[in-house]
């Protein structure tokens, strides 16, 4: 049984301009000890999906099963045990730490709130965690503004892990950091996974980061998963034209020709195109794509894609 199993999850927001469908029917699973990458452009709903999974945003419909328990409809006061077992690491290390609290307070409060250990036990646990996060013990008495972005992200990771979670949703944990720091933080996340046997849902818009990190990759476009495959399989054999375009967009000195960029902008989640939601930007779209919304279909072992012309490189002749 997977640790996390999301089925047909919808998260819609009512806005003055109409209904915004940020997550529009997503199903996914994360197994124990697995790192699942979720990739997509800004505004495709990947952050909302991460927050809906953790009940930081209330899903409109669909189900979120965690270790066999349905958590999307749990009353707020019954979420405690789930909160202990599923945590989040945020993108912006500058706004994710309370500027008025010392690091010690930031790390002790979760233990206190969940009634873990007595005072002495917490005094032992917090320094151990901060050292595992790669920061000196003297950090504990300091405030967040005294640290650099990379150091703050280490604090954010320590805070997420102090409750001993099994699932960690990483919402673009390195995209706000310098390239040299990114590698350090990614290494720390890998190390922590080995140490605690964590499962990650790793959200990023950066394919090279996902490539380094994930066993399995989900490609999201406008509130839907359009392709899902094991990492290696996806790089070698992308089936969806959107995935192909994303992979080609990674700069590669070995490739002579300039990558063909995807035309146009992502459509508005307020007004999702009819038929296949990618068809206005798709290089191989045909008339069927404007009418029929393609379902996620299996194409070989563990490889799924939602495209009428999956795997084709050029526009097929109209039937």
């Amino acid at each position, binding site marked *: 049984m997977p640790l996390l199993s999301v089925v047909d999850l919808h998260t819609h927001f009512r806005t003055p301009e109409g209904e915004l469908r940020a997550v529009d029917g997503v199903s996914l699973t994360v197994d124990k000890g697995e790192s699942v990458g979720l990739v997509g452009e800004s505004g495709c709903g990947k952050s909302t999906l991460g*927050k809906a999974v*953790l009940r*930081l945003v209330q899903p409109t419909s669909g189900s979120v099963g965690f270790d066999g328990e349905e958590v999307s409809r749990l009353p707020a006061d019954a*979420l*405690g045990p789930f*909160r*202990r077992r599923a*945590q*989040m690491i*945020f*993108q*912006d290390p500058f*706004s*994710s*730490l*309370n*500027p*008025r*609290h010392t690091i010690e307070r930031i790390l002790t*409060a*979760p233990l206190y*709130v*969940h009634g873990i250990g007595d005072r002495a036990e917490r005094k032992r646990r917090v320094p151990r965690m901060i050292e595992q996060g790669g920061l000196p013990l003297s950090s504990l008495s*300091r*405030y967040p*503004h*005294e640290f650099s972005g990379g150091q703050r992200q280490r604090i*954010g990771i320590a*805070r997420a892990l102090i*409750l001993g979670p099994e699932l960690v949703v990483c919402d673009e944990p390195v995209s706000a950091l310098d390239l040299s720091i990114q590698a350090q933080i990614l290494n720390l996340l890998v190390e922590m996974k080995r140490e605690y046997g964590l499962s990650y849902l790793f959200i990023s818009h950066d394919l090279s980061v996902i490539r380094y990190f994930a066993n399995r990759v989900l490609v999201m476009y406008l509130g839907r998963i359009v392709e899902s495959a094991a990492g290696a399989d996806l790089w070698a054999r992308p089936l969806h034209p959107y995935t192909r375009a994303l992979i080609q967009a990674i700069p590669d000195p070995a490739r002579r020709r300039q990558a063909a960029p995807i035309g146009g902008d992502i459509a508005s989640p307020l007004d999702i195109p009819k038929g296949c939601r990618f068809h206005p930007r798709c290089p191989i779209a045909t008339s069927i794509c404007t009418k029929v919304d393609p379902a996620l279909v299996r194409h070989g072992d563990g490889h799924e894609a939602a495209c009428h012309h999956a795997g084709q490189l050029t526009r097929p002749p109209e039937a």
Partner: protein
Amino acid sequence: MTTTTTTEVIASSSGSWRAVRAFFRNPAAVLATAFLVFVTIVALTAPLIYPEDPLSMVARPFLWPGQNPKFLLGSDSLGRDVAAGLVWGSRISLVIGIAAMALGVTIGIVVGATAGYFGGRIDDALVRLVEIFQTTPSFLMLVVLVAIAEPRVESITVGIALVTWPTIARLVRAEFRSLREKDFVTAARGLGYGHLRIIFIEILPNALPPIIVTSSVIVASAILMESALSFMGLGDPNRISWGSMIGASRETLRTAWYLTAIPGIAIVLTVLALNMIGDALNDALNPRLSGER
């Protein structure tokens, strides 16, 4: 890295120490604080300086300041010592100013934090409530409130608090609305913290600087309101206050102007000092203006 330099000490101290230093680098703030400390000491030691009831008649009426060295600031139309009145009056002004501010700020924080944090219908209802208070002329409402209750220090304090809390509530609501969107609040929810903990321990400390600034101005306006009430004869009749001294001597304004001028100057200086402290706090608590960080 063996010696700790001064800059490191500054960098490692918390933001509140930086604010305190910035505050006391401002000469106006130092002057205003010194004046208020002086007024506070005078108020606290009033029974030692003038053990007698300031309302008792002790001298010939209409003694001018300096005329009789026993009564330094002269006496009023009933022969009461003006200096004693001034000293005892500072007690009422400070007690009502601070107590009304404390009560008003507490109500304002509770209402504003609830509205801003929860949003939705709770917010709508509380905003309507604030608007009802704010669309009523506040001094008129205060007069009505005090007229209904007995004119005592307690009822005047509650009355002033009831007309000042909406200002704080609006301010706190706006702060909470922007702060609740921050990732550290989302993180707090994700860590399973309760609403009370998020409101008072996570968000409120971040919303404090503007509340502190406004509070000092509210003390000033509470002192003014109390003076105005006493001037109109709606104050506590058993206590002397700066406002009631002005009110009692308004008929002799042309012949004995010092009777209104002396307590008037006391009010002006105290209110001015509080406003200057408010300005200095605003600069000190706003890192972008104080040029540090």
